[in-house]
């Protein structure tokens, strides 16, 4: 397969995966089978264009329409819930990291002042002793 048609086939398969309902595994399974059949077709027809591929295999919408969305509604719901939970967990982890970072920076700044204060008071005491 030459580079140009390879890129076009990749884009075509991406559109199919996007159009398909269902989980990642479903999309991958169908796209994977299509990919190997497209490769076979292009090997038999080296001059084939992406339009020829689409004519032979169908548009992404035509292929996706063959899935009955109601059959996948439970799967889609589960998938969306998973994405929502992962998003919430990511936001929580990020928030905790930010809070910890801010707390550490504040703690570091405080300890710097403490050291400086201690040094100043030590210095004053020394000076007083010297003076006296």
């Amino acid at each position, binding site marked *: 397969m030459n580079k140009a048609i390879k890129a076009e086939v990749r884009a075509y398969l991406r559109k*199919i995966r996007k159009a*398909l309902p269902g989980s990642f595994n*479903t999309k991958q*399974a*169908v796209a994977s*089978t*299509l990919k*190997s*059949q497209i*490769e*076979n*077709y292009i*090997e038999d027809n080296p001059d084939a264009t992406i339009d020829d591929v689409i*004519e*032979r*295999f*169908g548009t992404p919408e*035509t*292929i*996706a*329409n*063959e*899935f*009955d969305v109601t*059959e996948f509604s439970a799967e889609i719901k589960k998938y969306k819930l998973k994405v929502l939970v992962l998003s919430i967990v990511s936001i929580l982890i990020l928030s905790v990291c930010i809070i910890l970072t801010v707390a550490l920076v504040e703690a570091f700044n405080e300890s710097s002042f403490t050291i400086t204060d201690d040094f100043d008071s030590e210095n004053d005491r020394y000076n007083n002793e010297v003076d006296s």
Partner: protein
Amino acid sequence: MAGTSDIKEKLKRGYLEMLILQLLSEEDMYGYQLKTEILERSNNLLDLTEGVLYPPLYRMIEKELISERKETVGKRRVRVYYHIEDSGKVFLEYLKSEYKKAMEGVCRVMKWGESNE
């Protein structure tokens, strides 16, 4: 005409699994072979693109009505053959019976096949 492709799609979804199972009950076939058999046997009335066969094939694999096997053809080409399982054969008989009933019902309502049509 607006909406006709939607209707065609819905009708096709109803019989596509049955056609695929029928062909596989005769012999194991790969995707393109299924498409050409359907085209030839339907006298070019059912001209499907190969890609539309894969969703119902995948669906039937999930339900264990059929299975797939990969065969290397030539040096490195891989061809996927589909094979009907026993549960697929049972399901095919069920589909055929239901489809016949539905067709008979539709024909009666539409008065198709009556001499005064």
